[in-house]
């Protein structure tokens, strides 16, 4: 059976896997973005807190993903839970780092001006600092998403959802006639998803970054 026949036969299963993969990554990205930006907002004004947040999140990233999921299984069990936790944790670093860098990069004289014309702390954050820091934050989200696409494949190890299942099935049955097709289908599926997400981010950037600061 060649690859195209394989795709034709299994497209139902593959689409379900792809959908679950995308959905898992998307949901984890939403959570990681909220947590990541929150951490950034809470820590960027203090030198050590900001550095601590960056160091902590980058330490998480150094843990091999397989090991991380392996460590999570005894604590939260198999399935969706370890997948979501691991993906969210991995997704944090680029977002936290870019949020801190972006927020610290806002010209202090602008913050001064915002204060001077009577904007409250919240108004300064939501109307001035975050919109100006948004382009680097969005870049962080993009990088995170690309990374999570790959890491999500490992989730199949913990019986999680997604295209990883396809890859693991293929690896598990190496030598059988569909093994290569399975690995290939899973991998290519992830690449296609990653490209689609990236295109979506370009669109989001167009829609959400003010023309006044777009490069």
């Amino acid at each position, binding site marked *: 059976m060649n690859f195209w026949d394989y795709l034709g036969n299994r497209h139902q299963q593959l689409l379900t896997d792809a959908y679950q993969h995308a959905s898992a990554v998307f949901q984890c990205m939403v959570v990681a973005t909220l947590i990541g930006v929150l951490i950034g907002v809470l820590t960027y004004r203090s030198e050590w807190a900001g550095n601590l947040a960056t160091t902590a999140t980058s330490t998480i990233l150094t843990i091999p993903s397989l090991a991380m999921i392996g460590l999570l299984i005894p604590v939260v069990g198999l399935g969706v839970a370890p997948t979501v936790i691991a993906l969210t944790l991995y997704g944090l670093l680029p977002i936290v780092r870019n949020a801190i860098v972006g927020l610290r990069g806002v010209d202090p*004289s602008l913050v001064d001006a915002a204060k001077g*014309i*009577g904007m409250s702390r919240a108004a300064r954050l939501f109307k001035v600092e975050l919109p100006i820091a948004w382009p680097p934050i969005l870049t962080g989200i993009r990088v995170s998403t690309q990374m999570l696409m790959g890491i999500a494949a490992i989730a199949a190890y913990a019986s999680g959802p997604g295209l990883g299942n396809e890859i693991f099935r293929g690896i598990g049955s190496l030598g059988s006639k569909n093994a290569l097709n399975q690995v290939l289908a899973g991998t290519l599926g992830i690449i296609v998803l990653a490209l689609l997400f990236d295109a979506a981010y370009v669109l989001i950037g167009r829609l959400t970054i003010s023309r*006044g600061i777009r490069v």
Partner: protein
Amino acid sequence: MSETTAATTSGSTASGADSGAAGTSGATSGATIELENLTKRYPGSHEPAVDSVSMEIKAGETVIFVGPSGCGKSTTLKMINRLIEPTSGRIRIDGEDVTDIDPVKLRRKVGYAIQSSGLFPHMTVAQNIALVPKMIGWGKSRIKSRVEEMLDLVGLDPGEFHGRYPRQLSGGQQQRVGVARALAADPPVLLMDEPFGAVDPITRDHLQDELIRLQHELHKTIVFVTHDFDEAIKLGDRIAVLRERSHIAQFDTPEAILTNPADDFVSGFVGAGAALKRLNLTRVRDVEIADIPTVTVDDPLQTIFDKLRVSGVNELLLLDKRGRPYKWLRRGDLMRAKGSLARAGTLVHDTVTRDATLRDALEAVLTDNAGRVAVTGRRGEYTGVVDMETLMNSVHEMLEADRLDAVEHQHELEEQRAQLTHQEQEGAGYGDPGGAAKA
């Protein structure tokens, strides 16, 4: 001042005049500001950054803080809207103690313009200007018309500029929008922290003129920080010369500071050429303008010849159809040009208005090859001539008057001092007058 308002409104179009009138009639004019022993002490430093500044600023007055860098002038300014919280002392605006009220509420009543404009790059010009009115809850249509009005006020075309982003504007235009934003909610007080520090000299000059015009219309209380003494002289009703830790070395009118600096620090800061700087404080309309014979381009040649011969002067000013200075005609000019007016004489290349400073006039006179400059009215029509002699005479008179003022001032001070000494002597008893005098 009424003259200036009239000038600006009549000079603009009918619709401009309408909005201008609406703007001035409804506008809040200035409030008094009182600073009482205002002190800022940063943790970990012995000396306070600002040491017990007390000052009263009248409503509608433009006060300039001027001093060397690091003297605390900016800190003092930022304490007025509490961007920097004072360590001790009180701030009163229009009699109301604002030292302990919510700073956000205070700042919405106090306009704030800073160096390099401080415009938010991700918002359009209109959004930037609308910020404060929006925060204090104005309605949409009111904000919209206010934005147009403010752009008009600072000399930018609303249709062209309101949708632009700050980076699409020149430095001078950004600064204008910055001022428009500061004034949008019609605050009685405007704080300006070296607002023109980052623009080129020509634009700065322009912006200063605009600010003077605005202030003539609006009568806000303006506190303006600069390190440029010339800027201070040009803009200030009164100038506070500050030395380190924001100690007030002298707080007086520009004239008084120029002619009678309180001490060596102030005279050092005033710098050389006080007499030249004094020229900035007097306008052409304040001095005697000479009159010279004029002819218009419509006059027949014979009249022109006759005038030249009869009046006994060497020169005539030829005016164009609308009465504006056009050419200088000297005696031989017409002969040499074989009677053709089109070719005779030298074109008038520089004129000054009655609002120009004497310094501008001097500049024009010095660059003119015959040492005189035509003065023009509102629509560019000829009103007279200023020459070197007029300038010299008026400067002499001016300096003499200043000197008399200064002497009188000195006299008063001495009298006061004498009285004090007298009292002290009496208080200390008659036994030791020498010692009391020394004390």
